[in-house]
């Protein structure tokens, strides 16, 4: 069992971002979440990672309700479900290897961080990931100096460094060119297939979702309006998810809207 989301609800003021969302994930699938801008895709992922607190509903993992976790338990849960962001969210001034090693912070004592001390095993693993993601020439570069595609690969390496069960990717390819987007989706797909990790990925592109995902969840105004295998996602379903508008027009609109990014206050 990966997780069982029951009637998860979240409102921001008068706006309902998530409206009684229920999703069960029992296998290490590749799940694509699609929907218009503002449908609640990011909020869903952030609630799972606990960056955002839901108002009501439960997320059950191994018999415990995640929405009640606090302090150390919450941090350990976060380590188990790695998050990948549209804007990469790396530390631009730190070098690539240190950024990757940041994936181990949850299991390191605070003093170790103060002296920039990481275990030998962790460093070995970080360098291995560096090679695995074809970043070997950039280990000592500042993360901020890399291209978007490279930064997203560093973010994926950091996520893998956490050794998570679940990877949550919030529009990981929305700020990348088509070639890099393709590559990142392929990497996520490989992680899902080869390492048996559940990948939950928010996407703007129905085409990408169709090509790489096993299962699709469609959100509209905070409600799940589609949940099924990718084969079941026909044009009617897409139209329903995107509010009846022509799917590609809606997509284009939501991509543009998304370029204007939001900063949410931390709930750390």
């Amino acid at each position, binding site marked *: 069992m990966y997780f069982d989301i029951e009637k998860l609800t979240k409102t921001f003021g008068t706006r309902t971002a998530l409206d009684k969302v229920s999703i069960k994930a029992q296998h290490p699938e590749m799940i694509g979440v699609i929907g218009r801008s503002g449908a609640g895709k990011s909020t869903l992922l952030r609630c799972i990672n606990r960056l955002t607190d839901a108002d009501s509903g439960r997320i059950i993992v191994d018999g415990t309700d995640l929405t009640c976790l606090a302090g150390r338990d919450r941090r350990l849960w976060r*380590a188990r479900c790695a998050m990948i962001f549209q804007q990469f969210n790396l530390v631009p001034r730190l070098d690539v290897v240190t950024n990757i090693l940041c994936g181990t912070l949850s299991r390191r004592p605070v003093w170790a*961080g103060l002296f920039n001390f990481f275990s030998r095993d962790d460093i070995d693993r970080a360098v291995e990931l560096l090679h695995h993601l074809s970043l070997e020439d950039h280990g000592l570069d500042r993360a901020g100096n890399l291209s978007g595609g490279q930064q997203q690969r560093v973010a994926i390496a950091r996520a893998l460094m956490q050794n998570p069960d679940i990877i949550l990717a919030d529009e990981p390819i929305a700020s990348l060119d088509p070639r890099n987007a393709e590559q990142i989706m392929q990497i996520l797909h490989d992680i899902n297939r080869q390492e048996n990790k559940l990948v939950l990925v928010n996407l703007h592109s129905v085409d990408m979702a169709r090509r790489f995902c096993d299962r699709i969840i469609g959100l509209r105004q905070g409600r799940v309006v589609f949940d099924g295998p990718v084969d079941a996602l026909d044009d009617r379903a897409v139209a329903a998810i995107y509010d009846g508008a022509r799917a590609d027009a809606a997509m284009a609109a939501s991509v543009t809207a998304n370029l204007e990014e939001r900063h949410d206050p931390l709930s750390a």
Partner: protein
Amino acid sequence: MTLTSANYRSMRHRKQLYSFLLTALVGVLFFAAFGVTEDRNAGDFLSGFTRILDFPSELVAESAANARGLPALMVGFLPALIETLNIAITATLIGSTVAMLGALFAAHGLMPSTLSVLTMRRIFDLLRAIPEIVVALVLIFVLGGGPVPAMIAIALHTIGSLGKLFAEINDNADLRPIQGLSATGASWFQTMWFGLLPQTMPGYFSYILLRLEVNIRASAILGFVGAGGIGYEFKNAITWGQGRYDDAAALFLMLFATIIILDAASGRIRKTLSEGG
């Protein structure tokens, strides 16, 4: 570089104010000493006024006559200078460390609660509002003279002024790396250490250097009121009057040389920092 021009300018103004204060204090002491020696037979105000120029010229004449002796005098005063520098450096180190910690609680966006932000900012305001010299005088009265009261006084003021500036730097920090680390399960402190400090450190550092200069002047000034160091020697030399003018000149030159060297060095370091960032 998150150094805003407005902050930088206010800091510079402060520096200039201290230079001015130091000069003014020295000036006042000069004339006070003059008043002491001439006390009994002092003429009226106007005739005294014409002697204003006699005094510096005496000083210059006397020290010029002893010019060869100046380097030796300076070496003799080195311990006093080192004490002044020590007070300033210790106070800057302690003050900036506390300010750095405090500023984490004073920035919007890093803290979920606005209460901590407001409380911390008011504390900084308070620490900044009381002049060092007042705190130092009170502490000297309580603890007696010596470097410790001066150090505490300067450190407190440093916390107030750097804390505010650091909090502003923190306000402007990019929250995305912080959120990214937070999502990995890193603790709050780890998140700040790896996500915030790499962004803000260059900015902090250039304010700390600027503050060090300010604090050296403050430390020298506090010497006049009994905190020891070069200010104390200076006061002695001047109140002594004739016969120790060469001491005063030597001390003057040393203080100026120190500040000029520090100014140049910190200017260069700041430049390297901002180019590196």
